[in-house]
């Protein structure tokens, strides 16, 4: 022990080196837990504004593509409106529990193993942690940390994300999980063998969580393997292009607390 102390007192840089590396390693471990520190994430004001600036420069060069994507989305929404005109229009129904806030993605890594996005809306726009972030053709993720003007989003392309989904044509549920290889596809896990699936079937959001509304299209089955009477490796080709996320919608479920409280109380009795 004395030798160790002697070694370090003769070698102060070495000691500092070890100390700094230990601190860095603690930060890494922290980032792997769901409750990461707000100040070390890009939700803080300074890095938010730097990211926003750099995003606005990049946007300038991508305007053309974004316009095309928006036109496409408009078209889709118009078509949906056509279809629902004669039915009860749930999306404009004042009693509908979901409210949408448009936001812009200002930082969008999609090539890492664990991706975290940053959006330009925060607590001032009544964004809170654990809200869903969606597109008209997909699920983006769940808000993590929120500052006044910015929020970080745990992407679907993250090891910690497990999002409830179901088959469009039956009521069989599974959960989506990304294997880290390819940002155009995710895996559907825990789907019961009773679900009769084939390639090309559409997967939609399940609505079993309080975070996402039911029925948002997510992707289609591109491949699956049946092994020992259960599905393994169902890959879902995502409809949304995660390499070009720009305009997204944050979903606020106004009856979330009510539902959670009820469920909690029922468990305690």
């Amino acid at each position: 022990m004395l030798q160790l102390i002697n070694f370090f007192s003769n070698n102060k840089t070495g000691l500092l080196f070890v100390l700094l590396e230990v601190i860095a390693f603690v930060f890494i471990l922290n980032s792997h837990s769901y409750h990461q520190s707000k100040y070390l994430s890009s939700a803080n004001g300074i890095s938010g504004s730097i990211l926003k600036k750099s995003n606005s420069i990049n946007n300038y060069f991508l305007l053309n593509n974004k316009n095309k994507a928006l036109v496409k989305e408009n078209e889709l929404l118009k078509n949906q409106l056509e279809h629902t005109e004669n039915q009860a229009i749930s999306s404009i129904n004042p009693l509908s529990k979901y409210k949408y806030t448009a936001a812009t993605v200002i930082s969008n890594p999609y090539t890492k193993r664990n991706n975290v996005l940053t959006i330009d809306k925060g607590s001032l726009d009544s964004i809170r942690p654990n809200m869903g972030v969606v597109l008209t053709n997909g699920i983006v993720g769940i808000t993590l940390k929120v500052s006044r003007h910015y929020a970080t989003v745990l992407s679907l392309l993250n090891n910690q994300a497990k999002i409830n989904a179901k088959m469009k044509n039956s009521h069989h549920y599974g959960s989506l999980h990304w294997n880290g290889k390819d940002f155009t596809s995710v895996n559907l896990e825990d789907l019961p063998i009773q679900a009769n699936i084939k390639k090309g079937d559409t997967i939609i959001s399940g609505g079993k969580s309080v975070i996402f509304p039911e029925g948002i299209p997510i992707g289609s089955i591109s491949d699956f393997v049946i092994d020992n009477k259960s599905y393994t490796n169902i890959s879902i080709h995502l409809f949304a292009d995660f390499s070009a996320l720009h305009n997204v919608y944050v979903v606020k479920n106004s009856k979330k607390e009510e539902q959670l409280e009820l469920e909690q109380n029922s468990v305690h009795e």
Partner: protein
Amino acid sequence: MNSDLFKYGILLLLLPILQVGIFNNIDFMGHINPYFYIIFVFVFPVKNSKTILLISSFLLGLFIDILTNDGGIHTFSLVLISYIRLPFLRIITGKSDLDQAQFNIRDLSLPVLITWITILTLLHHFFLFLLEQFSFAQFGNLLLKTLLSSLFSIVLIIFGLQLFLKRRSNA
């Protein structure tokens, strides 16, 4: 010394902005990005104290990590190569008694400079990607990513070094 402190302080703030604003958006072949900011470790004068280098590397890495939500992977890898940069230089040049006060990066011959940068860049990128995926699974993929990304970084760093050194020798 004071003007040095100012110069490298500016560099400390400028490099993260360059990295996040430009180099992280290249996405060559889908996911290959250069990590240009490690040029800091190569241009930081040898005559200055190691302690200052370690602390500035730590801060630089931390800025990058905060901007990219990467936890501490850039901090860890950068502090690592800034600690081992001199030992490696001694091995490559074959001089065990490097005169730190007189030493100047401009005196290095190009092959020595390139070897030094290549080894440290490869090490930095390897640790960066290893800590990012946090497992030894897909090891081949990890090595490939390290190689491709390093190649990109090394070319940019050598190019950037020429600019940096030329500009200062004229001044």
